[in-house]
């Protein structure tokens, strides 16, 4: 008797597990379809109304959807790429510090702090960024604009207060730093001892050992950690909303205000006051964001997969 009931239970469990696996696919499809459905008026609806709504959103700057979403997308990618650029080397540094340099006790304590920081809600980063960092960082940006202003990226005058892409990038970098750090650290810690010992046995210094064994081993893991961080930055809403002075330009002037805006922050800024059609437009931009993050992640995974396999 136990054997028979065991067999049924076995089958039922197996079916449920399968179903849950497949559910993941269903959920992703559902996300896409529900968004598409709700954004449908944008495609299937009255185009004149659409352009009126969009013109209203942008003060007449844009009246087609792509015209609208283009600069937003540009801004989104710019801000998150900068954030990643800033936090990547620092994260890797800290991860190495924890995994290979710090004394064990300090490393454990640090690990804990990093994990905790990874869980700090983004509103808090928004509060901090908007109220503390913005005034504090102005002298620095002003210095950059004065002395490095010949680089187009840093063209002055630096906006005061610094509610600029540069400041937002710093805040996002701080936000994703613990995430990238904690994942990279986990990977670095898994570097096979043998590889490390092989390097040391050849007479490598510690840094050479890291370069020979740890970094190559951690590469794909670090890439996926960065992708996760980038994803977080791409989708970050509150911190951007609370700090950035938005604009709808294809502009690289990092230190000037009102140049760029991100999709996520734009949705949050417009959503409360939007009418039905407006919501459709915003959901349309959300769909674009979804597809972009999807593609970025997909490509990144494919790349790392190939490297590993």
């Amino acid at each position: 008797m136990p054997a028979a009931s065991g067999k049924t239970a076995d089958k039922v469990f197996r079916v449920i597990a399968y179903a849950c696996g497949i559910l993941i696919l269903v959920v992703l499809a559902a996300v896409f379809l529900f968004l598409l459905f709700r954004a449908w008026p944008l495609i299937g609806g009255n185009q004149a109304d659409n352009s009126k709504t969009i013109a209203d959103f942008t003060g007449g700057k844009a009246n087609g959807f792509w015209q609208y979403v283009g600069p937003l997308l540009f801004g989104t990618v710019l801000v998150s790429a900068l954030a990643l650029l800033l936090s990547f080397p620092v994260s890797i540094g800290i991860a190495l510090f924890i995994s290979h340099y710090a004394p064990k006790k300090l490393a454990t304590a640090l690990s804990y702090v990093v994990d905790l920081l990874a869980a700090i809600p983004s509103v808090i980063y928004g509060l901090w960024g908007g109220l503390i960092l913005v005034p504090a960082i102005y002298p620095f940006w002003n210095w950059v604009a004065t002395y490095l202003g010949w680089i187009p990226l840093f063209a002055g005058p630096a906006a005061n207060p610094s509610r600029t892409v540069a400041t937002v990038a710093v805040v996002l970098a701080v936000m994703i730093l613990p995430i990238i750090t904690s994942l990279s650290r986990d990977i670095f810690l898994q570097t096979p001892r043998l590889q490390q010992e092989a390097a040391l046995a050849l007479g490598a210094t510690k840094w050479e050992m890291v370069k020979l064994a740890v970094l190559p081993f951690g590469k794909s893991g670090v890439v996926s950690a960065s992708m996760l961080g980038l994803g977080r930055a791409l989708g970050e809403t509150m911190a951007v909303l609370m700090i950035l002075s938005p604009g709808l330009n294809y502009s690289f002037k990092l230190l000037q205000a009102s140049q760029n805006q991100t999709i996520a922050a734009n949705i949050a800024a417009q959503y409360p006051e939007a009418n039905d059609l407006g919501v459709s437009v915003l959901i349309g931009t959300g769909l674009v964001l979804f597809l972009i993050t999807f593609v970025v992640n997909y490509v990144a995974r494919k790349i790392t997969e190939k490297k590993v396999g």
Partner: protein
Amino acid sequence: MGQRIDVNHLNIYYGNFLAVEDVNINIEPNKVTAFIGPSGCGKSTVLRTLDRMHEIIPGAHVKGEVLLEGKNLYDKDVDPVSVRRDVGMVFQRPNPFPTMSIRENVLAGVRLNNRKISKSDADDLVEWALRGANLWNEVKDRLDNPGIGLSGGQQQRLCIARAVAVHPQVLLMDEPCSALDPISTLAVEDLIQELKGDYTIVIVTHNMQQAARIADYTAFFNLKAVGQPGHLEYFADTTTMFNNPQNEEAERYVSGRFG
């Protein structure tokens, strides 16, 4: 070309745990010395003190002397990095760098020491080392393939090539064949026989037949009980060790009555 190693009153610790006690041994140049003994008796531990690899484990340290041609490795002014350049090491499991080609693997150590190597010098060195490791004929047509794509035995020989390419004086091997199939094992054993012309070789093995086959001298380590420190029980030339050991424990061990 090999150098001699003299170990005097060496106590080896992991943190506060005394793992191996009072080792005294003289390792002859250009000979193969085998370490045997039951598991946990400290063979690997002793071996790793000979090129200061022991230290990389947090808390691990030693008391006593290890003299390489009369110079104590553990002197204050000695840089462990340079010790490891003079004393090469091969590990239990083959560990080529997975991201590198066969060629790059061989050159890995050399490149650390000297970045400006001409292509032709590098080619010569790769050929020399791979020939030395008895691997040249098998891989000469695919030097740019990843090292990880080789079979276990080939990988182990690649690691040996990598170790000899930096031209050390001493070669330490920790159970270099235990992860290999019999055929690869033979290939590696042959290689060891050859290499002793140029290097002093110390090898840890759990396989007494292997020790008997390849070693000139054999050191038998033992431990009184689990948790007790290991110690060097008996050291003799290999023939004596396996045919007429003057130590009861050693005899019991080599005759297969335990372990």
